[in-house]
């Protein structure tokens, strides 16, 4: 079980680091496009969820606790993306 826990954590860490690299690349290359910004926020939401489920062990936690934190990701990613969407239409 512990060996599995270590192996999972290592794979998750590698995936999270690669995802960080992708976000950085998107920001450097396509930083000014709306598509890149939306993708970067979705990658961040995915990373946050991975940290919660695998590092904070919410995957095996009582469901109400897991729902609170998964809900957090959905709510605030939603608010950020909604705010961004409105800003695209705002006068510059």
């Amino acid at each position: 079980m512990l060996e599995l826990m270590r192996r999972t954590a290592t794979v998750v860490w590698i995936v999270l680091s690669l995802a960080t690299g992708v976000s950085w690349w998107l920001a450097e290359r396509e930083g000014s496009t709306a598509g890149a910004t939306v993708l970067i926020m979705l990658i961040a939401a995915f990373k946050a969820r991975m940290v919660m489920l695998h590092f904070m062990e919410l995957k095996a936690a009582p469901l109400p606790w897991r729902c609170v934190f998964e809900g957090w990701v959905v709510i605030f990613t939603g608010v950020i993306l909604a705010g961004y969407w409105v800003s695209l239409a705002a006068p510059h």
Partner: protein
Amino acid sequence: MPALASIGPRPAAARRLPGDSGVWLFIAADTFMFGLFFSSFMFERLKNVELFNRSQQALSPTVGALNTLFLLAGSWFVVLAVSAAKQRMEQAVVNCLSLGLVCGGAFAVSKLFEYGAKFAAGLSVVTNDYYLFYFVLTGVHFLHLCIGLVVLAILRGRAKTGVGDERFLRWLESGACYWHMVDLLWIILFPLLYLVR
């Protein structure tokens, strides 16, 4: 055969929250507070998108990404420390916590250099609304990081004698979850402040 019991869907009773539930209440309250910070940043940004986008250009996405990598590595070492504690491998716990501290320390040093460069360029909390958010949000996060470093250092000190103790494991798990929360908040804060434009 306790090992066989872990195969298959996890029964509701086997689900557990690592560490202390009081610490989890704090973590939940803290993450929601940061969520409100994120929301108010986006709301204020709407009032002056051009200013926010222009101000953001003084930040380096490369430094922000590097800091993310430091925290991710730190979290990984702390997960390994918890796993080693469950096997009562005290030296491994001490080593993993030391490496976690080094990663967190690297983030702290990098952040201090970043603040120094901003101050040297004449940018401060009163420059404009964007920098108000930048300094307050990263500052509050930095404070959380410093508390996390102290917690990891205390746990590292205790690991030398207390690895066999159930209470130690519970506090290690609690400290680890707090540490992951610092990582979690930065994962959203970094793109929000450095990359959304």
